[in-house]
């Protein structure tokens, strides 16, 4: 066990060194998601100048500030709309939105379903920790029924979203769900999404021991991670509508992997066509 000063953590090349260590709680899954994302970028040997990470508001929102790439931390829920502007303005960029379940599917839900519908070439990674962590643990669009949060003190009475079903139904061409304990598969899945053209969505169920776990009988990160390990079953390309997420069972895996012309491809195709016609017209 050695503490060399000059040996750097392999991922530090991809991080904004000055900002590490990050602000997330002990055991929070966001760090694992960030590591998995940077690992995927490393494996693909991507050009760091051509990646833009956009994040919304919430714990995971801070992730944009931790990557050594062009990044933007938008207002709550607007990451995907902002990313749309970036991607269309410069389609050469790989635009990755990393945000939370509340940001993407509560306030930002409208932008998510439309971006998926348009199949614009944006990659979305959702850190789903079942609640609004940053603001102290309120119920969110994915909070399981009967779960306790600060704004559902008597147990959550709302039926949560099935995110992969929502993404698939909206038209995303790559949809997958993993958990932070299946980090190797998550990295492989992110790699696959990054290499694929079109709207990609990966839901990562991640532990939030300090805020969510504390109120739902899983006080430590280990308890949550072991729970994830116990209840997850992999059913690749099964019906996303039946991809259950409950206390007893979480269905993970890749659900959609299809090809569909992307929004910006058709747009730039049209522009080229319009300009050609205009030139002939002269």
């Amino acid at each position, binding site marked *: 066990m050695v503490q060399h000063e000059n040996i750097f953590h392999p991922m530090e090349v991809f991080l*904004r060194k*000055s*900002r590490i260590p990050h602000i997330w709680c002990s055991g929070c899954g966001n760090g694992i998601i960030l590591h998995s994302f940077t690992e995927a970028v490393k494996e693909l040997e991507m050009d*760091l*100048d*051509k990646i*833009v990470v*956009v994040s919304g508001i919430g714990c995971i929102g*801070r992730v*944009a*500030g931790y990557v*050594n*790439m*062009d*990044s*933007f*931390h*938008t*207002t709550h829920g*607007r990451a995907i*709309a*902002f*990313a*749309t*502007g*970036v*991607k*269309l*303005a*410069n389609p*050469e*960029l790989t635009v990755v939105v990393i945000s939370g379940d509340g940001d993407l599917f509560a306030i930002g839900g*409208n*932008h998510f379903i*439309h971006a998926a519908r348009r199949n614009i070439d944006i990659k979305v990674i959702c850190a789903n920790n079942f609640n609004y962590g940053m603001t102290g643990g309120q119920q969110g669009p994915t909070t399981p029924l009967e779960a306790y949060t600060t704004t559902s003190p008597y147990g959550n009475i709302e039926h949560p979203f099935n995110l992969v079903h929502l993404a698939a139904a909206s038209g995303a061409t790559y949809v997958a769900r993993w958990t932070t304990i299946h980090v190797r598969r998550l990295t492989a899945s992110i790699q696959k999404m990054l290499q694929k053209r079109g709207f990609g969505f990966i839901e990562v169920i991640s532990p939030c021991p300090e805020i969510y776990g504390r109120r739902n009988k899983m006080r430590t990160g280990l308890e949550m991670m072991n729970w994830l390990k116990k209840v997850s079953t992999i059913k690749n390309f099964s019906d996303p509508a039946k991809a259950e997420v409950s206390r007893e069972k979480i269905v993970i895996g890749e659900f959609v992997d299809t090809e569909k012309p992307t929004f910006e491809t058709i*747009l730039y195709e*049209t*522009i080229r066509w*319009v*300009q050609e016609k*205009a*030139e002939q017209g*002269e």
Partner: protein
Amino acid sequence: MTKNRAVLTGEHFLSGDLACAEGALAAGCRFFAGYPITPATEIAERMALRLPEVGGIYIQMEDELASMAAIIGASYAGLKSMTATSGPGFSLMQENIGLAAMTEAPCVVVNVMRGGPSTGQPTKPGQQDVMQAKWGSHGDYEIIALSPNSVQEAFNLTIEAFNLSEAYRVPVFLLMDESVAHMWEKVVIPRAEDIKLVNRKKPSVPPGEYAPFRPEGDDLVPPMACFGEGYHFHATGLTHDELGNPKTDSPETQFNLVSRLCEKIRRNVDKITKTEKVMLDDAEVAVIAYGVVSRSALSAVKKAREKGIKAGLLRLITLWPFPERHIAEFADRAKRIVVPELNYGQIVREVERVAKNASIKFLPKLGEDLHTPSEILKALEEIE
């Protein structure tokens, strides 16, 4: 050399909306994100038709606030970008306008004002969003707002708006009355080379040393790197230091940032603000007006002169920052100022603030009913 389809040099007969769109194209705008809303829809339609011809991007987003977010994204990706809306959309955009101000993203927002509040009178003119333009989003920040009173000016001021937004890295609003937007007039589009365009300052230092929010020179405006240029910079709506990293626990960082965001406009008021002075030098009574109302005011002042009343007109072209000096110059002399507005008292409050010892007569009009020259003339006559 293929024809520069962005600048349709020559005379045209256009509406305010269309002229605005052509102005944007001429100014180098290559990204428009919008959402249909009367009376601004025609701008979007024109952009949808014309942008592809110049290799630009038109996208109709799912709502106005998405459009606002998108144009900030496009701006940070290196394109001059614009959106156009009306009252209700403008309200929706306020949070992201704040984000644009905070992250100093150059962009242009056209607000074709209609009767308000709420759904109000979608097809009727109104000047009721003027204060919202200045104070709409939360927190202290400064913006620039221009007000055209003719179709030709709609074209010119849109170009001016882009230049100002690039120069000062700030959202610039074009507050156009519905009447101007929907009236058709002759528009002369000059040759491309005659149009002065301003582009954002680019960083002069290599990526290692670049601080995205450190101003360069005395205009307090930081040079702007864009995504994909290898600067690996971070920008955030959180209070941030010059490096762009979040710094929400330091009063000093907050003060420096917010004060700079405001000072970079306040310090350059004279360079930014524009008005049109008509017979003001010897005027003993004046009219201060903007937008479509200034056209009635002009004829009223002429009639007054015919009647021997020394009347003058100050037409505000720049609403924000408020051209105080232009008023102060004649306010002591003129002492009597008539302020006709299509609202229930907004710019008149600024005039009262500036021309303290002048007696100010406010002429409100709401809903279709524009001020007639005779009404303004009567006010000029009766005012003591």
